[in-house]
């Protein structure tokens, strides 16, 4: 349930410039308890810069970030956040269990709870049997899983995942999705960035489309409604009709009468993404 009382993160008109480059232009976003919020945008859109301000690694030039009413630094100090930064690498010289345990302890979890949290997190991402293994000996995908396990262990109130599934195979990606859903169901707010748009459709309650500034936001279904067409694809001839629903009904009616096989496809979030940010191939 989203209301102003259960807001976990609130960013108000954040500006961030690096020299002459403006990375964030008056960005305002929020994430609530039990909500998965995705931030989508092309490369260089300023998504990671925004997240770095939320977890306190960067200071905004202007604007305010609060996490449960606290500054990012205070929130970090109270163990509210679990984070997988972009292109993150774990501490390779530790064993898997030690890494998860370290981040759990950094978040100030009482000693008595640490072992249970670590076991649960390793189980959730399927790394239980690798607990005693040196991280350096794991594959790249498994190293990402170590980071995800470390971030979600003990269910911090805010989980920030900056492209957590890069380089991860389909099965392990599903494990991460399940972990994200479980965290949301238990009341954590999850902020996610990814370039896999179907992942956003699968997981998100709310999506922000940004390119230095927020261009639009809403639930995936609300965003899909931006495109007022439906695609009718005729299997035998390969013909594609991209038309409004009224016209599509006529085409479908005709295809049914002629007993021709066809499929109907509504716009996806990827279509919205291409519409909003442009198709680089069309530009060429």
């Amino acid at each position, binding site marked *: 349930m989203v209301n102003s009382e259960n807001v976990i993160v609130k960013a108000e008109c954040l500006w961030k410039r690096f020299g002459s480059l403006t990375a964030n232009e008056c960005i305002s976003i929020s994430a609530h308890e039990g909500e998965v919020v995705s931030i989508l945008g092309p490369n260089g859109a300023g998504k990671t810069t925004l997240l770095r301000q939320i977890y306190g690694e960067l200071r905004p030039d202007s604007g305010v970030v609060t996490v449960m009413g606290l500054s990012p630094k205070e929130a970090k100090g109270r163990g509210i956040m679990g984070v*997988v930064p*972009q292109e993150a*690498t*774990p501490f390779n010289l530790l064993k898997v269990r030690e890494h998860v345990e*370290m*981040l759990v302890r950094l978040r100030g979890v009482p000693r008595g709870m640490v072992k249970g949290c670590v076991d649960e997190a390793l189980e959730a991402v399927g790394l239980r049997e690798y607990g005693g293994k040196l991280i350096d000996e794991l594959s790249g995908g498994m190293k990402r899983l170590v980071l995800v396990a470390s971030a979600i262990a003990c269910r911090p109130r805010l989980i920030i995942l900056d492209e957590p599934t890069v380089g991860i195979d389909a099965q392990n990606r599903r494990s991460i999705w399940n972990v994200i859903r479980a965290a949301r169901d238990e009341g954590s707010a999850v902020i996610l960035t990814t370039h896999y748009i179907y992942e956003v459709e699968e997981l998100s309650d709310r999506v922000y489309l940004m390119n230095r500034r927020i261009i639009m936001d809403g639930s995936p279904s609300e965003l899909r409604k931006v495109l007022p067409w439906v695609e009718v694809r005729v299997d035998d001839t390969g013909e594609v009709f991209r038309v409004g629903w009224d016209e599509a009904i006529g085409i479908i009616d005709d295809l049914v009468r002629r007993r021709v096989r066809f499929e109907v496809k509504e716009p996806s979030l990827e279509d919205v993404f291409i519409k909003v940010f442009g198709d680089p191939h069309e530009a060429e």
Partner: protein
Amino acid sequence: MVISKYILLSSRSWVYAGVGFTLIFPVLWLTLLRIVGNPQYLQYFMVGTVVNTSFLIPFIGTAQDMAYIRRGSTIYTVLFSNGADHWDIALGYITQTLLLTLPSIASLLLLSMAILGVRYGVAQIMTTLVTALVIALSSSLLGYALGIGVRNYRITNQVSQVIPWPLLLLAPVYYPITILPQAIRLVSLVLPTTYMALAIHGSLVLNPMELIRGLLGLLVYSSASILIARHAVIRGEVNG
């Protein structure tokens, strides 16, 4: 202090290099100096070897580790974003170097009696141990400032290996300042290793004035390192 435990655990991966640089090489060096060195500088060979051991690894190790975790990878961000403060991370690395240096210096002092034939009392050994720890701390801070202050970690990796040699050769570390040419004597006055050698010599001969002069010099360098590191942290928060 949570982080110190895990940074220390990570050091098991380079235990052989650690033992080599902090114990085996210094012992071999001391043995070599005993055989080929001028006997009247015996005391300075000991001072030089203790300074070398308590300065070199804390400085190079901290500089290269910090450069790698901060600039060459995202380990620093992982630690920072999940609850560690900048100073927690610094303290973790400094604690690691102190804990690794202490047994080496203690062993070195005991072995030196057999190798050089010198005799040290309990007071001399204890004072020298504490002074060596202060040197390791100061060297770690210098390394931390270098590692966190320079953006290109490859430059830090190279510079941190080059810097120690002029610091050890242009300062009166292995020999008395009186044998240095006048121009180099002046240069040596601005080198931290000069004050490290003063402090260790003061500890070994139990000369409080020499010890205090050495420690005051180290205090200046440590304070400068803290200011540089603080500036680098703030610059990082503003400029990324």
